[in-house]
């Protein structure tokens, strides 16, 4: 099911290139670029991953206020009522609206590699991967939006270094997982 969707997507872009219309990556990319600049005008560059420790901060202030007040990271990240949090909420709404335009409903589950043969294995990989992306993003101080999109847009050296790291292990891991097939995991 995942292959069918990928093929549809790419044949659509090939058709767009032939007919002289901009391919989706170009037209949607131009729009995203403009949205990023609007954000810089409204308050600052887009970012997402800082929301995750702010959720922890709010939870800690509710259950362990002493710890929350002493942890320098939670103090540094501060309140959850900041623009980044509202971006994350907006992303959910954007997903709901976007899915309405799909002729075929998004599958409840798609595998990233051949060994994800059951929903349980997919959920496990999504959870472990989710831990790693936020842990990694917080070490670096930003994620795909904050470092790669916003950082590289502003020509920040940190954005280029982060992107190099992400694609080095991202490409390597994706190729390894694909080659490993169903063995062991």
């Amino acid at each position, binding site marked *: 099911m995942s292959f069918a969707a990928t093929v549809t997507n*790419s044949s659509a872009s090939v058709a767009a290139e032939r007919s002289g219309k901009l391919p989706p990556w170009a037209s949607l990319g131009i729009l995203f670029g403009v949205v990023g600049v609007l954000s810089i005008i409204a308050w600052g560059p887009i970012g997402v991953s800082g929301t995750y420790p702010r959720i922890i901060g709010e939870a800690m202030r509710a259950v362990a206020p002493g710890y929350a007040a002493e942890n320098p990271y*939670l103090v540094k990240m501060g309140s959850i009522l900041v623009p980044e949090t509202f*971006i994350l909420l907006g992303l959910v709404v954007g997903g709901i609206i976007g899915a309405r335009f799909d002729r075929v409903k998004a599958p409840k589950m798609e595998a990233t590699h051949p060994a994800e043969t059951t929903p349980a294995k997919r959920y496990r990989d*999504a959870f472990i991967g989710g831990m790693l992306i936020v842990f990694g993003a917080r070490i*670096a101080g930003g994620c795909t939006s904050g470092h790669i999109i916003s950082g590289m*847009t502003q*020509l920040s050296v*940190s954005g280029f270094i982060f992107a190099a790291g992400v694609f080095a292990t991202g490409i*390597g891991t994706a190729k390894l997982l694909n080659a490993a097939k169903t063995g062991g995991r």
Partner: protein
Amino acid sequence: MKNVYALFIGVAMGLLIQRIRASSPAAIAANLRLENLSIIKFMAMTIAVGMMLVYSLSLVMPDALHFSIKPTYVVGVLLGGLVFGVGFALSGYCPGTCAVGIGEGRRDALFALLGGVAGALLFTLVYTTLIEPLVSVMDFGKITLADVLHVPVVPLAIGVGVLFIAVITWLPTDVRKHG
């Protein structure tokens, strides 16, 4: 008011991410395997348009732009990126696209988001002992490519933007079909 703007910007981002299928773990995996480059090209186009537009605007309305450059602490930024890449390939999500996936009704996206919350908790617990010493190593501060190359930033932004667009126009989108 900023938060209201942010909500609208988030909705626009979510729509665009959904349309280019960046919230699809299978599509992310295909891009990372370099079999299909649609999402990588989308990101590069976003960056190219953004840098050319924002630095052009800086000539006419510099006071209206809220630039915010992140510090380049080389070891931490690179290590964070390397850890992120493994999680990106395994989950097929990034911290924003899993929120879009939840909106689309993807069940695994919820697990990715919960994993992210767990990752943030773990990070908070080890921050003082493991992370604080790391982020102060080789910290060059808030530097841009223009500072490093000693060239004016506006022409550099135009040049890098044009270069990005030239490369992604030249690269095939469906790599296997083009051989």
